[in-house]
């Protein structure tokens, strides 16, 4: 059986696994996901957008508790979807795990963890990538 959904995903998989974005060589603004042109420097940034690895640390800017969402989340419902302000500048939307919804606060420090993001169906490719966990859980030293 031919199935191509994994291929589309594969193209940005490495960046997703290891949080590789881009940094503008002119103004140092960091982008994740990667962009080929800086939103501030426009054509002056062409050819100067270098790969840049984020350290995976940030704070919760805002969050929402999803009670019935994407069926891929299955038994994880209700789950927490948060907007994370990364230390390097970008904002990322991702699931917050290893914490109960009532304990989440705006401004709380979080770090990335490597988790299953989902699978389209039981015979499909399993997608892996980052989620965030509170810094009260064990994590790599900054």
């Amino acid at each position, binding site marked *: 059986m031919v199935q191509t959904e994994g291929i589309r995903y594969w193209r940005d998989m490495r960046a997703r696994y*290891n949080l590789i974005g881009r940094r503008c060589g002119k103004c140092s603004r960091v982008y994740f996901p990667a962009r080929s042109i800086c939103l501030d420097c426009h054509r002056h940034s062409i050819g100067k957008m270098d790969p840049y690895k984020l350290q995976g640390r940030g704070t919760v800017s805002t969050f929402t508790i999803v009670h019935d969402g994407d069926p891929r989340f*299955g*038994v*994880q419902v209700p789950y927490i979807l948060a907007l994370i302000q990364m230390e390097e500048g970008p904002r990322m939307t991702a699931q917050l795990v290893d914490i109960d919804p009532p304990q989440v606060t705006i401004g709380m420090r979080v770090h990335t963890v*490597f988790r299953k*993001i989902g699978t389209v169906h039981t015979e499909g490719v399993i997608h892996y990538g980052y*989620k965030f966990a509170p810094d009260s859980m*064990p*994590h*790599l030293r900054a």
Partner: protein
Amino acid sequence: MISNTGVGIVSYGAYIPRYRIAASEIAKVWGAEGEGMGGGLGVHAKSVPGPDEDVITISVEAGRYAMARVPWVDPQRIGAVYVGSESHPYAVKPSATILAECVAACPDLTAADFEFACKAGTAAIQTCMGLVGSGMIDFGLAVGADTSQGAPGDALEYSASAGGAAFLIGRDRVIATIDETYSFTTDTPDFWRREGAEYPTHAGRFSGQPSYFRHVTECANRLFKDRGTKASDYTYAVFHQPNGKFPTRAAQTLGFTKEQIKVGLLAPRIGNTYSGAVPVGLSAILDVAKPGDRIFAIAYGSGAGSDGFDITVTDEIASYDRAAAPTVDQLLAHTQDLTYATYAKFRGKVRFQG
């Protein structure tokens, strides 16, 4: 298989999911008293993977912890990545390639998944030792990890748990040398799972004497003989721990004290992490080991075989950056207890329609 080539452990990292289910919680569901079969097995609680965790995520966390402690190792110098498990998420598609990508070791390396019941991780360590010792590679990353399941109500349900550890094997700045590894292997059908079967089958009591105890003690005694050592020469010992009872009895038979096995004996608190068992126990020992300490490690995999290791901690551990990643103690301190209902939901023991 004497090593003697200066090959050893350059770094390590362990990962244990934070969820726990108590033996008493499982016993309650099956109408048993107290801790039910868990009490008899010496398993008071076991770790449970989150619904978004599997052998690949556990391997990646453990592998990243190991690499974070040795920032001087360029991951591009890793020449081999092996993941040993009996619960690889894919039947076909390696776990090891994802781990390799996640520690930035790709693409100049060889990678593969290993299987040998609960000793697949130590088999991966031995393979890395061979490749490093022969000079074929600079570093090899070997992982033992599992997210095993027992059928509801079976004795295994009290013990089958989740966890794993990664070992960076090399010759430069080793924190512990592996002075010898020896394996004792026979064809013994004590535990198996056929392709497509959801839960494993075991031969009940047969999994004890002719299987676990025979292989572990034969392996240990041969290692003692080769090295000219006895139990009292070691600071620590760690054995495969399908429960709390078996390794305690094996250690006693071999002359080890409770004190020697205490640090590496995690089954009473986290259950049987299968391929992760000796690797996580050894990690807990390395978390506290000092230069000159000697460690005796015997893994066991059904089917059956034992891998033994005679390990000596070096002076390098004094400057090794352990604090860059969580220790086993820190992982054990941050847990959340599950009810049987949530556990069953997480582990897919309950089927949802639609």
